[in-house]
């Protein structure tokens, strides 16, 4: 059978050319789209959203203000073994146990509890000043956690003291 007898066969080249003009070449587009997808998958940095603890920085206070309120000192020190030692006012210093498993409560809860009992003993209110005194070697992690534990008691007048 000759090809010319077939209905689907069109020997006219110009007609075939016209039909092809309407074709969209998908292959390069799919290539680009896949490249974009791979790029986004590889460069995406999945991480938790950061939170923030509001804090006030120390300002110059007048002598009269200093005499009016005697701040309660909270000294925080990090030991070389990684533990954290805290002393509230003149009370005995205590070590904060590090968290051993996920189900345990925050290890700095003990600081909140002890601070609350000291505040109650001394008859201090929520607006009374607290001086957070870290040493030069105290880890920033321990400073922030101690601040968080104090903030938990709704104490808002917390000042950072500069280390020597």
């Amino acid at each position, binding site marked *: 059978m000759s090809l010319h007898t077939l209905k689907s066969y069109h020997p006219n080249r110009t007609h075939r050319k016209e039909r092809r003009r309407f074709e969209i070449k998908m292959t390069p587009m*799919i290539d680009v789209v896949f490249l974009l*997808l791979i790029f986004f998958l590889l460069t995406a940095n999945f991480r*938790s959203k950061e939170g*923030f603890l509001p804090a006030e920085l120390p300002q110059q206070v007048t002598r009269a203000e200093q005499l009016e309120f005697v701040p309660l000192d909270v000294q925080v020190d990090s030991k070389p073994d990684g533990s954290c030692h805290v002393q509230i006012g003149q009370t005995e210093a205590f070590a904060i146990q590090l968290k051993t498993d996920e189900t345990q409560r925050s290890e700095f809860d003990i600081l909140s509890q002890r601070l609350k009992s000291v505040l109650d003993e001394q008859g201090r209110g929520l607006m009374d000043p607290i001086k957070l005194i870290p040493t030069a070697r105290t880890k920033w992690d321990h400073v922030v956690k101690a601040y968080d534990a104090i903030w938990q008691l709704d104490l808002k007048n917390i000042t950072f003291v500069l280390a020597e």
Partner: protein
Amino acid sequence: MKINSILKTHSDSQFNMTAMIDVVFLLIIFFMLICQFIVQENFTLAIPDDCVNAVVPDNQDQNAVTVSVIPTENNEDVFYAVRSSQFLPKNYDSQTLLLEDMSNEISVQTSRKENQLVHLRADKDLTYKQVQLALQALSAGGIQKVQLAAFKNDQE
């Protein structure tokens, strides 16, 4: 007839790409919408975690000025950054000059807006002595309120 059947078989073997392209485009749109493009000033560092009172904002304030304290690659030293301006202590003859430069930069960055939000991001393994220079610079730059970056949950 034979050619006709060949042509027919050939046309049947083509993939239907439309559905796949739809899915791929949806994935791209999804990634473009959910990803928060990391601002240049957000240096990668391990901020303190497990702070129950840390407030996670719904939307990141793009106008907030971020002051970062970042350990160097060998963890022996630190460098400071006010937004994307970096301050390396080794480039300064004295700490006073470094403090002055940093506080000036903080003043410039925060003077554009009243009640400017300032974030302090510092690596959790740094010592207070290393971070307090940033606190001093903020204080010298006239900042009273600062937000300490910390994760609400345990990240380990």
